[in-house]
């Protein structure tokens, strides 16, 4: 099929398309590529005019970032808050999505719409109260506060994504299982989990990415103790922190895990992101 299509395809057009596609891709990737190069330069090389393309790479920046600001502590906070908020979110969202997908009631649609509408409220709209509550309960600058906030702010999207995935599981399979006398637990373990794994995975992946990159709440609810990598990077925005090579190294260390992770999971992410509406 593909072979036939390709053979009917003019070669000149293919060449043109190839060049154009690579051109666009390299152009859009350029800032990231430049960041990657700068991370391995010395500070002087980083601001050289004209910019240096070829140089002897140094790993000095990475050591210095760790020494100056304890990168590992922030990285650990990022891992803990994003993983745990994803787990908490899934634990709340999955049962709800399951209930709505398989026991559709009169109000299911309204509930779904209401849930999504809570996501339309900008974070800053809830900022003062959440800040006051966190302060009163001594949760400022704790991982727990971030975990709760991340999980809840992602919850509507998680429910939606899981709902659209679960809805695509043929009802007949579940009904057959019920006829055969499967208990709820068996139904979930033997039918729903294996068939809904893709949905759970893509939902979890997206939440992980969103929590990892979240900046508003991390910047305003956490500081030196529970700060995530987003907080660490923002601390480089002050003028005295203007060391490009170190900034690049820190940035690279902050984004590399999630970017690489994203490369491997892009297919699942697309399915999830579109709520299954685009196939």
């Amino acid at each position, binding site marked *: 099929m593909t072979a036939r299509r390709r053979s009917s395809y003019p070669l000149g057009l293919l060449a043109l398309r190839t060049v154009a596609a690579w051109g666009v891709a390299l152009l859009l990737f350029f800032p*990231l590529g430049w960041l990657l190069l700068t991370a391995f330069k010395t500070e002087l090389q980083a601001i050289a005019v004209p910019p240096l393309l070829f140089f002897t790479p140094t790993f000095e920046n990475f050591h210095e970032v760790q020494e100056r600001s304890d990168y590992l502590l922030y990285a650990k906070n990022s891992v803990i808050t994003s993983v745990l908020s994803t787990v908490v979110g899934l634990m709340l969202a999955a049962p*709800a999505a399951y209930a709505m997908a398989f026991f559709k009631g009169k109000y299911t649609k309204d509930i779904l719409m209401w849930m999504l509408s809570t996501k339309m409220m900008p974070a800053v709209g809830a900022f003062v109260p959440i800040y006051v509550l966190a302060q009163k309960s001594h949760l400022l600058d704790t991982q727990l506060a971030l975990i709760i906030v991340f999980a809840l702010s992602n919850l509507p999207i998680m429910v939606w994504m899981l709902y659209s995935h679960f809805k695509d599981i043929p009802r007949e399979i579940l009904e057959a299982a019920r006829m055969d006398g499967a208990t709820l637990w068996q139904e979930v373990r033997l039918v729903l989990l294996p068939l809904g794994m893709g949905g759970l995975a893509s939902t979890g992946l997206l939440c992980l990415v969103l929590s990892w990159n979240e900046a508003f709440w991390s910047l305003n609810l956490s500081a030196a103790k529970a700060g995530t990598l987003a907080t660490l990077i923002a601390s480089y925005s002050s003028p005295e922190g203007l060391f490009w090579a170190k900034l690049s190294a820190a940035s690279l260390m902050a984004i590399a895990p999630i970017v690489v992770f994203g490369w491997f999971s892009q297919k699942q992410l697309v399915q999830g992101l579109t709520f299954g509406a685009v196939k």
Partner: protein
Amino acid sequence: MNRRLLPRLLLTPAMVTLFLWMIVPLVMTLYFSFIHYNLMQPDQTGFAGLENFEYFVTDPSFGTAVLNTLLLLGSVILITVVFGVAIALLINEPFPGRGIVRVLLISPFFVMPTVNALMWKNMMMNPIYGVLAQVWMFFGAQPVDWLTDLPLFSVIVMVAWQWLPFATLIFMTALQSMNHEQLEASRMDGANYLQQLRYLYVPHLGRSVAVVVMIELIFLLSIFAEIYTTTGGGPGDASTNVTFLIFKQALLNFDAGVASAGALFAVLLANIAAVFLIRMVGKNLDK
């Protein structure tokens, strides 16, 4: 297990937490917005009436912030949809290295907004050492001081760069599901590429455009990190959006009362947008 009780039991935890997450801050915000509440002036207390609202709305920055919010939203959505469709069409047919091109194209979406902002600010847009300045000089032009002279435009560039991959990815997925027999048939009937674009590709993409617009709207209304780490809303109010204005009131002026009044306004703004968009997408998802 009772088949009527079970779904409610499963639904309750998510609904209760979400309800609390919505209603508690909302009620508190409502309360704060009607009292004098400045963290720096604890002696000033009591009912404020509509003073906070008046103060927020008559703030000279207010109009600019609303306009900036809409400009940012509109331009980023327009840029990502138009270029997203174009790039998706470009890489829709197989060509050498398509897998790598896809990986390169999708990458910006995973970049942390704070990193995105600092990277553009320092390494791309710096008027002396930045790559763009070097390119401008190479062509004999005067380098632009992007963040000072075109602050809102600079923020738009950063945000659009981040969200273009998202749009591309979704349009690409939608194109993959096009009916090939239909395309083949239209070709046989002598339709050229432009006609195919007009009558087959674009109508097919309608639904994914709705999804892209909705999700971007949710995230773009509350753009914060890019502004916080680059321009700080300035110079003046040139790149202040509603989110950032409220943040300024709450954390730089310590006025929780005024910030709360502003927050209610942001909620209103978001809900106006939501009513239209959720309906539109809701219809689309109904099947």
